[in-house]
């Protein structure tokens, strides 16, 4: 009978590592991108003066921030189909990261908007600008500056959090680690490589965040 006993990692495994790495990046970029789009609306609502906008937005943000990502993933992957919405594996991963990051990003957006001084508002209004124009030309560009450093921090956090998506069998980096450990039982080496690959993704980004922060501060 065929028996596959693998004592060490081979070239195919190296390819699998790279595949996992690529999938992780795809998952996170898509998740954060879509999440930011949602966050723009939620953050605006949260910063709004209207209670009927701000309160539901706040509820949305709090529930997501105060529950574990693992549970959010299970709900998206296993619960939505029961309500009629079929979600394939990759989409479920993206959707979970999208929803999760949208809550944290919304707070960043809110802080960004609220960091723009009231005098800016008044001046713009004084010039006869309507609300959308004030947002588009005056507030958001300034808020953006405040939002970028924590935004990059969120991306780094998301890359690490994406490791949880391994539980729904999506072939991202941590899942590759599980598969290869099951095959070779070389957990030390395999997870060591996995950790190193995550580090290679995250560390440069964290340095970048520092540089960006400094640059934007100097800009004034």
């Amino acid at each position, binding site marked *: 009978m065929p*028996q596959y006993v693998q004592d060490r990692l081979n070239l195919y495994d190296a390819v699998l590592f790279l595949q996992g790495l690529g999938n992780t990046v795809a998952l996170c970029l898509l998740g954060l991108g879509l999440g930011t789009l949602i966050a723009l609306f939620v953050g605006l609502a949260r910063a709004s003066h209207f*209670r009927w906008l701000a309160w539901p937005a706040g509820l949305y943000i709090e529930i997501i921030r105060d529950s574990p990502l693992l549970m959010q993933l299970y709900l998206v992957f296993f619960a939505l189909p029961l309500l009629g919405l079929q979600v394939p594996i990759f989409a479920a991963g993206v959707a979970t990261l999208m929803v999760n990051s949208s809550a944290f990003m919304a707070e960043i957006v809110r802080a960004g908007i609220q960091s723009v001084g009231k005098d800016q508002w008044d001046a713009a209004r004084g010039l006869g600008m309507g609300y959308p124009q004030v947002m588009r030309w005056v507030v958001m560009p300034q808020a953006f500056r405040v939002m970028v450093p924590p935004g990059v921090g969120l991306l780094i956090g998301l890359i690490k959090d994406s490791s949880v998506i391994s539980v729904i*069998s999506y072939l991202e980096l941590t899942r590759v680690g*599980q*598969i290869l450990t*099951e*095959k070779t039982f070389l957990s030390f080496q395999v997870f060591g490589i996995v950790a190193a690959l995550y580090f290679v993704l995250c560390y440069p980004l964290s340095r970048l965040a520092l540089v960006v922060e400094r640059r934007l501060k100097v800009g004034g």
Partner: protein
Amino acid sequence: MRITRRSLGVAMAVGFLGLLLWAHAAPAGEAPQMQDTLNTVVKRGELIVGTFDFFPPWGFRDAQNNIVGMDVDIANELAKELKVKLTLVAVPTTQDRINFLLTGKIDVAISNFTATLERSKAITFSNPYVIDGIGVIFRKEANIKDWKDLGTKRVAVTTGSTGEILIKEQAPKATLLRFDQASTALLAVQQNKADAQIEDYTYTVYHAGRDKNLAYLNKPLAFQPYCFGVRKFDPEWLNYANFFIYRLQQSGKMKELYKKWFGAEPFRVSPSW
């Protein structure tokens, strides 16, 4: 304006109580929808099968990291019969087979799936395609001669598996270590975090053969059928699966596959086991 944490906490509490009340209100019986997976698969041109990728020789990864195994070969036969493409989904844990099936992620579960009455409440099983038993694999030092010897030892089991239920009957005083997957449970035995593992008999034979520090108990209990798992209210698909299995066995293909992976004759599939 401020959204106090307290107001949200109150909202939570209210939500919780609401759910509680809903739970106690008698659930109205909804008319369940009939499924037609057979036509869906044919129309789609693709069969999605759930297997394991960590459970040799039923479903595991080879050197090129492709999923291979007995169940995979059977899935290939099924796809060939249906004249569609085969897509394998590596279900991560034992429990996920049912979860993935119920939520439509897979069309059928072919993953050394033991049919039990309990599981039959949630999904439907086909006729058996292989008969297996439950065995014990242990480190040689533990010197297990019988199920009773498991007494108070540390036993690794997979959550939601048939072995987990059996060990509670056979050796209720044993310390149970639960794992999501059989492979992590096996790793625990190899690393001496557990003395023995309860798993399907063919699994124990296979792995004891691979690792000279391990041995298996030659006294399988609770002979159990491996069946395809399909959703409820899906009669056409179930009939197709049953006929497919019958043809597979009748034509000798099943015996041929079993010999290929286990090097032995399969147990006889008949009610008199």
